[in-house]
């Protein structure tokens, strides 16, 4: 029986659906000190004086920490492979507060009430300074977000704290200006995306204890257990060997938990007091002092010849890092790379970017990681180009999309050839599913409502080439079961399950005979973690390699038992045999525990020189109310090439979930600041994510290619799926209403006002 490409239940499913206590806060010891953070009310201020005596004297308070009590060495909190591209610009607590919500003091106590009281008793004298709140004026602004001398960038990413730059760069191929000048049709527009929030249902949380060796044990809701261990070591100024990180079940991540957001607080409290402690972020904190998407303004110039061949793309991205530079140099790279590479006929391209520091919440990693912003901009510009040429937007894609075996300027700027890719089939099928030819561009429903359709294409990667490491430890147990130990982080996506499916097939054993374990940095093999669309591809390959290696060892032990050379013996999952002689796997397993010198356990690491892109087409049908501007999403069709879907159900739900997040980004999720720099959408009452009545129908199909370098032909899926809704919905709204919205979210107000404006200008769309 083969398990790959089967829709098995997740291994942890029944525990989750019956509400078992498997998450961080369910597991935290009752005696944990409760930690809360005093937060800055100002966007840019210095602590002139901070009085904590009264707070410390409060009954039940164990510890109050301020900037004077923490190490003075800066660190990066981005969960990235060392040396991080992200600048080392943070302290656990700093005298300089850089956004509304920045940490002022850490309070730990026996009860929440005691901590609340102590927080009130801390007296702070602030020196309030003018903040930099507008990303357009941040570069070379006299106000510096990071004026400090010990700010450090470990990598040449164009960062310069004396210019408010977290990254700056330029890439090019060919003479873009000449190519654009030669194009019969060009579009030149700016697209603006917001600092959208991941909103995993479980907010940031962690608890810490000290063990019998005096080591710090950290149980955290994280996507990056190994990076977290290093970051905490850096921050505390202690060797990582003193730290053990355990990841239990976690309630979603979407990139938010690829950054150390809250873990440092219990870490320092427990390290200093020796007592167990925990922190659970409120939703308010998760929305004002966490790690959202980078707000970006992306200026796109794109040109095509009279036949619709896209010849040049120029992308200039201005990205808002906020107060700290985590993930800033890396996210912006994808903004250009993943969008530009979608066009195979380019004669020239330019990609310029600047990531600026400002005094707002620091951005981080969010599913799509910069590609989402770039693809929204470039795909929108190409849709606008198609309209200008009077060409069907589907047709312009057909002429320019990536095609297997044809040229591609890849994610590293090299001219290569597209490997596994069924974008053409994805488009054909998406058109069929949504009824493109019948519905494009729009249908008047005769009741003041118009339905329009729009589409977009997208690609992402599968792991960071030459960087990400997938790890797997596989052992044969005494009872002939296998334990698959993992260092990647299942965050609800089901990677423990799909990696076990792969192992079961490789080992020719039952799925239930594979026990998945993870993550404990003391025990699990090193893995970069679950981000960058890496797990299925990189860790999957590590699992396959571990299986082959372990099989060899099983054969070796079995052959020894049979008294034959290993080369003569074979293994079929149940027995090792040579000719008519055989020993069962169970016998081999017992042998492993008795007088055995051949370890029946292997650990493998995998890293890839390439990052094979998954592809997809998203197509939306919306209904616009011409008077109120109200937008109903009627239907969303997603056709995906993720290579072989290892578990079609889980791949489908990944897609549905990603599309739904993309719909939120397109239509409702907004982040606005008060003039003091305070986020106005600071609760679920104000930051509106889609509910089940907001999303219409989402329909997903797969057009699978076979990726030769991937495990069982698989590529990634997790991030890709958030990339198409913004451009597809934007064009559907345009096709229905004639209104082009270039600043997300596309609200009814923007549409209604656009319609009104067009009416006033006497324009007639169609």
């Amino acid at each position, binding site marked *: 029986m083969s398990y790959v490409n089967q829709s098995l239940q997740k291994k942890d499913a029944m525990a989750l659906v019956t509400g078992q206590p498997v998450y961080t806060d369910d597991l935290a010891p009752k005696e944990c000190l409760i930690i809360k953070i005093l937060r800055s009310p100002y966007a840019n201020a210095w602590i002139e004086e901070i009085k904590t005596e009264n707070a410390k004297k409060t009954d039940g308070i164990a510890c109050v920490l301020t900037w004077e009590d923490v190490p003075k060495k800066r660190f990066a909190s981005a969960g990235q492979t060392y040396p991080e591209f992200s600048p080392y610009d943070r302290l656990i607590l700093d005298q300089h507060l850089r956004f509304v919500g920045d940490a002022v003091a850490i309070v730990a106590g026996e009860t929440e009430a005691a901590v609340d009281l102590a927080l009130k008793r801390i007296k702070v004298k602030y020196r309030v300074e003018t903040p930099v709140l507008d990303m357009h004026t941040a570069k070379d602004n006299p106000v510096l977000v990071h004026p400090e001398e010990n700010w450090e960038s470990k990598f040449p990413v164009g960062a310069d704290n004396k210019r408010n730059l977290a990254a700056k760069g330029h890439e090019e191929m060919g003479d873009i200006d000449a190519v654009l000048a030669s194009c019969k049709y060009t579009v030149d527009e700016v697209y603006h995306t917001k600092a959208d929030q991941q909103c995993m249902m479980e907010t940031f949380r962690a608890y810490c204890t000290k063990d019998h060796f005096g080591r710090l044990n950290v149980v955290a809701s994280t996507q990056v257990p190994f990076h977290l261990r290093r970051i905490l070591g850096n921050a505390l100024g202690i060797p990582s060997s003193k730290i053990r990180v355990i990841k239990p079940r976690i309630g979603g991540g979407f990139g938010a938990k690829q950054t150390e957001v809250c873990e440092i607080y219990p870490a320092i409290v427990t390290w200093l007091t020796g007592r167990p402690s925990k922190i659970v972020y409120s939703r308010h904190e998760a929305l004002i002092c966490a790690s959202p998407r980078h707000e970006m303004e992306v200026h796109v110039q794109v040109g095509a010849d009279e036949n619709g061949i896209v010849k040049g793309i120029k992308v200039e991205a201005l990205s808002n890092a906020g107060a700290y530079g985590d993930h800033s140099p890396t996210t912006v790279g994808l903004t250009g790379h993943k969008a530009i590479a979608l066009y195979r006929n380019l004669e020239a391209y330019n990609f310029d970017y600047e990531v600026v520091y400002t005094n707002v919440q620091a951005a981080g990693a969010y599913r799509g990681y910069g590609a989402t912003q770039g693809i929204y901009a470039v795909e929108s510009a190409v849709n606008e180009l198609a309209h200008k040429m009077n060409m069907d937007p589907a047709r312009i894609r057909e002429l320019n999309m990536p095609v297997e075996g044809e040229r591609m300027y890849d994610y590293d700027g090299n001219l290569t050839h597209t490997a596994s890719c069924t974008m053409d089939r994805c488009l054909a099928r998406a058109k069929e599913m949504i009824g493109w030819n019948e519905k494009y561009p729009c249908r008047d429903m005769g009741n003041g409502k118009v339905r329009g359709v729009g589409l977009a294409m997208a690609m992402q990667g599968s792991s960071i080439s030459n960087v990400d490491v997938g790890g797997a430890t596989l052992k044969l147990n005494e009872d002939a079961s296998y334990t698959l130990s993992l260092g990647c982080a299942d965050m609800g996506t089901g990677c423990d399950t799909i990696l076990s499916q792969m192992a079961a097939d490789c080992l020719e054993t039952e799925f239930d005979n594979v026990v998945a374990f993870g993550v404990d940095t003391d025990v699990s093999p090193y893995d970069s973690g679950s981000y960058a669309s890496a797990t299925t591809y990189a860790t999957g390959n590590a699992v396959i390699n571990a299986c082959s290696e372990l099989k060899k060892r099983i054969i070796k032990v079995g052959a020894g038992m049979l008294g034959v050379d290993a080369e003569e013996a074979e293994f079929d999952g149940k027995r090792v045999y040579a000719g008519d002689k055989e020993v069962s796997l169970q016998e081999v397993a017992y042998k492993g525990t008795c007088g055995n010198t051949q370890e029946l356990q292997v650990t493998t690491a995998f890293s890839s020189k390439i990052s094979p892109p998954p592809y997809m087409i998203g197509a939306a049908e919306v209904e616009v109310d011409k*008077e109120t501007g109200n937008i109903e999403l009627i239907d969303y069709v997603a056709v995906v090439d993720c290579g072989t879907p290892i578990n079609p159900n889980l791949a489908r739900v990944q897609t549905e979930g990603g599309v739904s997040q993309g719909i939120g980004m397109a239509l409702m999720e907004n982040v*606005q600041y008060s003039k003091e720099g305070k986020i106005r959408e600071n609760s679920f*009452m104000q930051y509106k994510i889609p509910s089940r*009545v*907001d999303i219409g129908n989402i329909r997903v199909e797969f057009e699978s290619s076979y990726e030769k370098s991937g495990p069982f032909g698989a590529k990634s899926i997790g991030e890709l799926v958030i990339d198409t809704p913004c451009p597809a919905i934007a064009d559907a709204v345009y096709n229905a209403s004639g209104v082009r919205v270039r600043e997300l979210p596309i609200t009814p*107000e923007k549409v209604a*006002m656009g319609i009104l404006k067009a009416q006033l200008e006497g324009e007639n769309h169609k």
Partner: protein
Amino acid sequence: MLKIKNYVKAESLEEAYELNQKRTACVLGGMVWLKMGNRNVTTAIDLSGLGLDTITETEKEFVIGCMTPLRDLELHEGLHAYTHGAMKESLRHIVGVQFRNCATVGGSIWGRFGFSDVLTMFLALDTEVELFKGGRVCLWDFVKMPKDRDILVHIIVKKTPIKTAYLSQRNTKTDFPVLACCVSLSEDGVKAVYGARPSKAFLLEDEENILKDAQTLSEEEKKEAYEKFADYAARKVPTSGNMRGSAKYRTLLVKVLTRRALEAVGGMSDEN
């Protein structure tokens, strides 16, 4: 965090009233709003033991206890029929079923929130509130009264022959409205109430008699009259901007929703 020192489940309204005379006391509604604040309450007064969580329908009126959950209003067949579905329409967008099982009509009305769908709906009906000391007060007067230490006991909706339609525009389906509009048509003429302007609900009456003889008009003329009234509403209803929408957009919505609500209530037939 909300802090409560003492909790008293009142055994009578008299007791509740007495306890509530202290400024630091607080009558508990459904708790959904109260618990979000940072209040320090010395005595929390719970009315849930006083049988005030029911809707009584008589020939003349609906008497709604202050502790009635919004969900019960939504499901009440008598109110549904009387308001031609407007009651349900005004409630079904409010967050979710569990929220509406918690939130009480008393809490919603007492709060006199600008964004309140509930208040907007009741203001369009012939509604009175019954205060423990203050007695029966027209809802419109109650809305204008400063918050005092009295206790809201009942909400009474008189069965004046009426037709109503409730419309709202929201950025997401379960969000607060960007604008809510409830139009009622009775023998006395039209009343249009606007909520979430975003401040307190506003009543618009037909001072220019635009719809005075609307019943007698032809379909064509009716349509024209509705348009005219919608323009009049857009002129008269004050709006302002907040994070959910600008004043300009709200005024546009006033116009559109007014016309649509008028069309929905149609030309006042004798059915009532």
